[in-house]
């Protein structure tokens, strides 16, 4: 029997780069095939060709032994391919059933036959063990359940091959475990699955086969039995990678960030941070763990002066900065690696050099009185580009021309270039490749060892575990637990992130 899906010499070129270079692979019936790769390795391009969004320049796609030309997503769906995107394609104000049948409605005269659609959905849900409330509105459902709706939607349209694009990025560890159960059941029922991820642990736990992409080329084809995390990481990056940051125990000094009874509203005016008090000392990294959307963004925005809190006080190194704005926070010795580097961290239409002095442009030596000193700025940029290994041809190149990893290095370089009392690092490695992550982690630890206090907020539990000396778990706008970094247990923190405290029940 031919494989369900076979790809032969698939090549796609964009101006200046070969996004996928003669990629070959097969997908057997009932197989979970994982694709690993850094950003820009070609995973998205490959999947977009399978899903008919890009046309390959060379090579063939075979479904069940037949060469096919896939013309767009609708054609892909007709041929039994289903894709669950990282960002869900659901209409929040419609019900589960409506979302699933959207564009594929069963009609009875002029009316949509909801009843028979629901019957089909229920039987699919039962077959694959996907528990979903068919009449609930999407925006009332947790993210994990929304993802199940996406999977059912693909199955409802007859998908035999499911492409899951970074499916665990938005899930708690427990939700991820539930998803793995579902994926295994799909496999048991004969569905074939392509699983895209950059999380080595998950891939090893789940996949039958692992393909590693690097710079558009398939550089490895292995199985979990033959590989381990270190081996996969070095395949992805092309060199040995330090997965676990070497760091000495923290030597906390005086208090450098003192927050009491902080209350912050989100953009819509809802209370996002309800009552947070915390202290950070010099020379320690305090990690805030939590599923995205539990108030971490607002906490960081308030601490750094981007938004005004409703209540509470914030002191940095003894100076009160509550309600004083970003300028006072910077003056008090705060560095801020923002959550969204393109929204806050960079001016994309500026050169690297100008971005390197974005918050120090008005002080000596970068300004003499009111006049900008371009020579001093150029010198600073040249030094930082070297020290932080920003890969660019010129300090005059626009920030928009850099890759995500190099953009983030510019932000990190700028923030660490001045003497700091406190560093606030929000999702400092989101969307970055293994090599850049390693570099940024080392920089943060080095800054700690310099005596700076670090507030680290990350949705990646692995990042918190790797870096934090103390871990605070945030849930629904509150700090519900504190765990010492050294003794932290993944499962325990995972439960806390879901709001389940050891004393019993939901927090």
């Amino acid at each position, binding site marked *: 029997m031919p494989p369900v899906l076979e790809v032969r010499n698939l090549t796609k070129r*964009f*101006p200046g*780069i070969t*996004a996928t270079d003669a990629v070959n692979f097969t997908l057997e019936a009932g197989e979970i095939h994982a694709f690993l790769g850094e*950003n*820009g*390795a*070609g*995973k*998205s*391009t490959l999947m977009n060709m399978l899903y008919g969004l890009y046309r390959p320049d060379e090579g063939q796609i075979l479904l069940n032994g037949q060469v096919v030309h896939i013309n767009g997503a609708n054609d892909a769906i007709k041929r039994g391919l289903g894709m669950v995107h*990282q960002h869900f394609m659901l209409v929040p104000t419609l019900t589960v059933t409506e979302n699933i049948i959207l564009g594929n409605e069963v009609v009875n005269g002029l009316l949509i036959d909801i009843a028979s659609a629901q019957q089909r959905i229920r039987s699919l849900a039962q077959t694959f063990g996907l528990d979903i409330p068919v009449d609930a509105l999407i925006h009332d459902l947790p993210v994990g359940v929304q993802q199940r709706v996406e999977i059912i939607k693909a199955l409802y349209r007859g998908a035999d091959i499911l492409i899951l*694009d*970074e499916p665990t990025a938005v899930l708690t560890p427990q939700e991820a475990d539930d998803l793995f159960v579902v994926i295994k059941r799909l496999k048991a029922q004969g569905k074939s699955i392509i699983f895209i991820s950059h999380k080595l642990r998950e891939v090893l736990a789940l996949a039958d086969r692992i393909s590693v992409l690097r710079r558009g080329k398939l550089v490895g084809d292995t199985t979990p039995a033959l590989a381990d995390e270190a081996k996969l990481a070095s395949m992805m990056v092309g060199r040995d990678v330090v997965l676990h940051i070497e760091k000495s125990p923290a030597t906390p000094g005086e208090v450098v960030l003192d927050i009491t009874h902080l209350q912050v509203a989100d953009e819509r005016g809802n209370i996002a941070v309800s009552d947070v008090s915390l202290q950070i000392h010099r020379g320690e990294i305090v990690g805030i763990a939590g599923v995205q959307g539990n108030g971490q963004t607002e906490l960081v925005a308030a601490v*750094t002066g*981007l938004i005004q809190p409703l209540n509470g006080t914030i002191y940095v190194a003894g100076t009160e900065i509550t309600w004083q*704005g*970003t*300028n006072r*926070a*910077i*003056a008090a010795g705060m560095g*801020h690696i*923002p959550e969204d580097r393109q*929204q*806050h*961290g*960079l*001016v*994309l*239409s*500026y050169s690297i050099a*100008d971005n390197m002095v*974005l*918050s120090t*442009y*008005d002080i000596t030596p970068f*300004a003499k009185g*009111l*006049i*900008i000193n*371009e020579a001093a700025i150029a010198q600073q940029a040249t030094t930082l580009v070297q020290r932080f290994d920003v890969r660019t041809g010129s300090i005059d190149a*626009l920030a*928009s*021309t850099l890759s*995500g990893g190099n953009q983030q290095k510019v932000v990190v370089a700028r923030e660490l270039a001045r003497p700091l009392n406190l560093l606030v690092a929000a999702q400092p490695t989101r*969307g970055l490749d293994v090599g850049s992550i390693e570099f940024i982690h080392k920089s943060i630890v080095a800054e700690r060892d310099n005596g700076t206090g670090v507030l680290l907020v990350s949705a990646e539990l692995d990042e918190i575990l790797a870096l934090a000396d103390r871990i605070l778990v945030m849930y629904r706008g509150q700090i519900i637990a504190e765990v010492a970094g050294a003794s932290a247990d993944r499962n325990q923190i995972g439960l806390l992130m879901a709001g389940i405290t050891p004393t019993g029940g939901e927090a």
Partner: protein
Amino acid sequence: MSTTPPTPPANGWRTGGGILVVPVLAIFTALVIGAIIIIATGADVLAAYGGLFMGAIGTPRAIAYTLVEATPYIFGGLAVLIGFRAGLFNIGVEGQIAVGSMCAVVVGAFVHLPPGIHAVVAFFAGALGGALWGAIPGWLRARTGAHEVITTIMFNYIAIRSTDYLIKVPFLDKASSSQRTPFIAEGAHIPFLFGPDYRLHAGFLIAIVAAVATAWFLKRTIIGFEIRTAGANPDAAHYAGMNVPRTIILTMALSGLMAGMAGASQVLGLEHNLKASFSAGYGFDSIAIALLAASNPIGVIPAAMFWGALRNGAGLMQLNSGISINLINIVQALVIAFVAADQIVRQIYRIRSARSAGITLSRGWGR
């Protein structure tokens, strides 16, 4: 996941090109379409465009008149451009010119100062009046989020009607039969460069200096850096500790300052009084100048000269060929359409978009 790759190049497209390419091709295309219109009306294209050319730059006097026409456009173009750089769309240049003219003429005609000093004081009074009038919508934007496009349009009505009233009632020259203010004092005149026959006054030189100063200011001072950052990414400006509301107010004041200078230079250098219903639409054409100059302060100078040349040459064109001077309005409109919608020009001449990020002309409501 990787970002979306750039679109692949279509065959035969040229890449990049200097910043001059689009404006020059826009002007060329507009003149070609103008020629087609002339032919369609049965007139002689050569006579029409020959007349336009001779009228604009055919004689020393024509050149001088063109530069006179260009002067308020240089100031006005700079006013609009400064706003653009901060992401603000100042449509209120017309009103700021009116306030600037009024302030200059009041000081020029009713205050007694030594000659020379009188001109300087009157000029700065006009500039300051424009700055204050521009700062108010800036303040409203910074404090309340009221969009400057709406408020500056409203402030135009207030400025134009108020100055009209001031000219007709309190400052009316009762000795004159026409509705105008008295003439300004001799000592408040901005001097003519080549005598009154050529009409070219020193306001033109001030405009050139203003353009160079604006370029330097935006590029080399920390306030210019703040203005550009607020325009390119206001969130990043806030993040970096810049006071974005203050920058907005300051930008609108500087924009109004340039507009006020436009008014002052017209009144003190050329008109020497202010007539009722004097509005000449300089403020609105200034938006066109800033677009044509691609928001480059030095580029404002040739853009304004081109605009002045079209206006100045139109008369001789009509005389020579019988083509209405309104054709010039069509050509001007086409130039702006092609510059604003530069993709049309790029499509016609197959030039790929430049890599540099565009300038945000305006943003939505709120802060």
